[in-house]
């Protein structure tokens, strides 16, 4: 399979090599976190060195390449963010017909092998593309902010003015009887520097689309990308929480120090999945300045930050389709007695399923033997696994 893909890549490499591969910054997922490329060379910071490395990252657009050369140490964090985004996307869509996978084309470029990871899905304007865009944009904010926090990025640190950020005060939502009248607190500790993360993510993802649209490429896809990037950033910005610690005699909360914390990334992914499920808005195919809803009597209402935008209706993702990069659901594992989207009926699109018997070995009847060992028996169990036809 791999070899076949590689051959395919070679074939395309010969025929369509004049044009460069499409921009797809998700390819950063292949840049390892401990990649020696982005270590500071011994001695002086060598600008030329990084500029050269960044030029070789084929998936990045010109704006991203410049940014890469300016902030080379941020790139491993972005890469980690992308990997995390893809992993969370796969988790969230595990039981649906589109399970965050696509048929990736592989091409060879002068700089090596280029795998257009999730590219066909990402460049479409479907709901799935919207989710993918939003979650990766959120992932960059998250990863860069983390980087600032741990002190690994030199250009940023903890937020020095946390009071300027939007945040949810958990105590005002449900005040505990003890804390009433004692809402004195001082900012302390290390607040997450989300504003920096957001600024970086906006520059990294939005600027190029902004330029393209302003320079006359009135493709609505640029606006949609920008909006969905915004939705991703908002999923973090709207859910920053104030955490506090009590001080005083026996922690009697005489005074408190508080700091801001952004949500866990798994929670961000869940939030975005909900937006995908319930707050996806179809917009018009053409736009001059801003996105407009397709629904005629709602045209005047601007899109909110919790609404994902898409143009194309999604395919069913049932059958494999090479041009759209859809893998189809054949061979996917389904659940027999489920009523959700992972039920064999829905996931297999009515084609039915095959059943395989697999012997599972588990440890059972474990006993603690003094001292200190645990003795178990080996149990075998036959499990039926259903896969779509």
């Amino acid at each position: 399979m791999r070899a076949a893909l590689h051959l395919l890549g070679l074939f395309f490499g010969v025929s369509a090599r004049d044009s460069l591969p499409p921009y797809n910054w998700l390819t950063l997922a292949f840049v390892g976190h401990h990649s020696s490329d982005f270590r500071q060379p011994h001695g002086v910071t060598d600008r030329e060195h990084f500029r050269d490395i960044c030029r070789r990252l084929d998936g990045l657009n010109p704006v991203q390449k410049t940014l890469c050369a300016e902030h080379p140490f941020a790139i491993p964090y972005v890469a980690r963010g992308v990997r995390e985004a893809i992993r969370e996307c796969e988790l969230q869509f595990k039981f649906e017909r589109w399970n965050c996978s696509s048929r990736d084309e592989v091409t060879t470029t002068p700089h090596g092998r280029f795998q257009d990871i999730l590219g066909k899905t990402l460049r479409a304007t479907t709901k799935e593309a919207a989710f993918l865009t939003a979650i990766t944009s959120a992932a960059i904010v998250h990863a860069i902010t983390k980087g600032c926090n741990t002190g690994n990025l030199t250009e940023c640190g903890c937020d020095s003015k946390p009071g300027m950020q939007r945040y949810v005060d958990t105590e005002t939502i449900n005040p505990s009887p003890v804390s009433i009248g004692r809402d004195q607190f001082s900012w302390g500790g290390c607040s997450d520097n989300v504003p920096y993360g957001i600024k970086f993510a906006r520059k990294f993802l939005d600027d190029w689309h902004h330029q393209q649209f302003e320079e006359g490429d009135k493709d609505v896809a640029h606006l949609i990308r920008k909006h969905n990037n915004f939705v991703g950033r908002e999923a973090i910005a709207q859910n920053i929480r104030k955490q506090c610690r009590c001080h005083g005699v026996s922690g009697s909360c005489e005074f408190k120090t508080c700091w801001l914390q952004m949500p866990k990334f798994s929670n961000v992914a869940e939030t975005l999945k909900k937006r995908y499920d319930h707050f996806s808005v179809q917009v018009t195919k053409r736009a001059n300045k801003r996105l407009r809803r397709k629904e005629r009597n709602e045209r005047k209402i601007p899109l909110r930050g919790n609404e994902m935008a898409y143009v194309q209706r999604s395919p069913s993702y049932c059958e494999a389709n090479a041009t759209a990069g859809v893998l189809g659901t054949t061979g996917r594992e389904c659940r027999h007695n489920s009523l959700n989207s992972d039920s064999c009926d829905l996931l297999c699109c009515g084609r039915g399923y095959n059943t395989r018997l697999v012997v599972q070995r588990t440890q059972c009847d474990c006993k603690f033997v003094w001292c200190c060992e645990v003795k178990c028996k080996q149990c075998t169990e036959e499990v039926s696994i259903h896969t779509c036809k």
Partner: protein
Amino acid sequence: MATTLKATIFIFLLLLPFCYPISWLALGLTNSRLDRGRPAVTCRNLTGLTRKQTRFCKRNFELMDSVQNAAFNAAAECQFQFNKRRWNCSIIDPVSLKVVGDVVLRQGTRESAFVHAISSAAVAYRVTRDCARGMNDRCGCDYSKNDTSAQHRSQYQYQGCSDNVKYGIAISREFVDAAEQKQRLANGTTITHPDSVINLHNNRAGRQVLEKALRRECKCHGMSGSCEMKTCWDSLPTFREIGLQIKDKFDGASEVRVVDEEKKGQIVMKNSQFKRHTNADLVYMAPSPDFCEADPSRGILGTRGRQCSLSQNAIDDCQILCCGRGFEKKVELVDDMCNCKFHYCCRVDCTPCKKRTETYFCL
């Protein structure tokens, strides 16, 4: 030897009367009641019966009402279970009262497996139920379980009218399986056609669902229903539930082939990696067509004009149902009542208004 065998089968196929194994389902659409006065003539005039089935009809004429109802139930249940799919179980032409659908009936597809299973289950179900209701003189409740042994006495007693599933199944076996005709070869021996082997298997699998579905129901007696004494009986669930279970089996049906072994067809799995089918599983031999485009010669109606839904994770999703041909939206303003208020007593005032409904149809 093998080639001559095949040749004789072929010749025989040509001589087969125009009667598919499932043609008797058309019984469900004859709205005329069976003439009780003249069983022999009535049986001969029924459409879709094989010779063996006609003989059954004459011998068990009082059961034919049940069979007729069963045919109707089977077709209705099939249409209910498949109403959102490309193949929506349109198997009987309402005008000619003939069973259409070459594909379904002759090629051993998954759909054919379902139809056979549901129809044989329907006959067993209907007969059993009608027996328990006392509609036939020949049969009644199943009292075989009403044992008075001391073992159960303390807890409960089987004394009610248990559904006589065994009888129903026996009748179904006799009538439905009689639709499969054995083939007589030139040298006088008979063989069963591979399709028939599959059909008989699926008939049995359908009936087996009934046996497994029997449920014990009890009623309490004693002071204020204090359950000092209990009467119990076995009863079948609704036919909808039976249909659902068979539909489940349809989804997990195994692809098989039939090998000749001593003139008896043996069913073996096509892909040995997968779990071997059991007697309770549905089996099929031929892959199903996609049912997208109309093909009257094969009994396929196509999906043009079918209503579909826009939700993405549904089985009647427009993308799937319309086979990618696209769909049209039909907007209708329906008269409705709004702002309804209840006035004491007893009047409800509403203002008439229009409601917008959107429906989608395959192109």
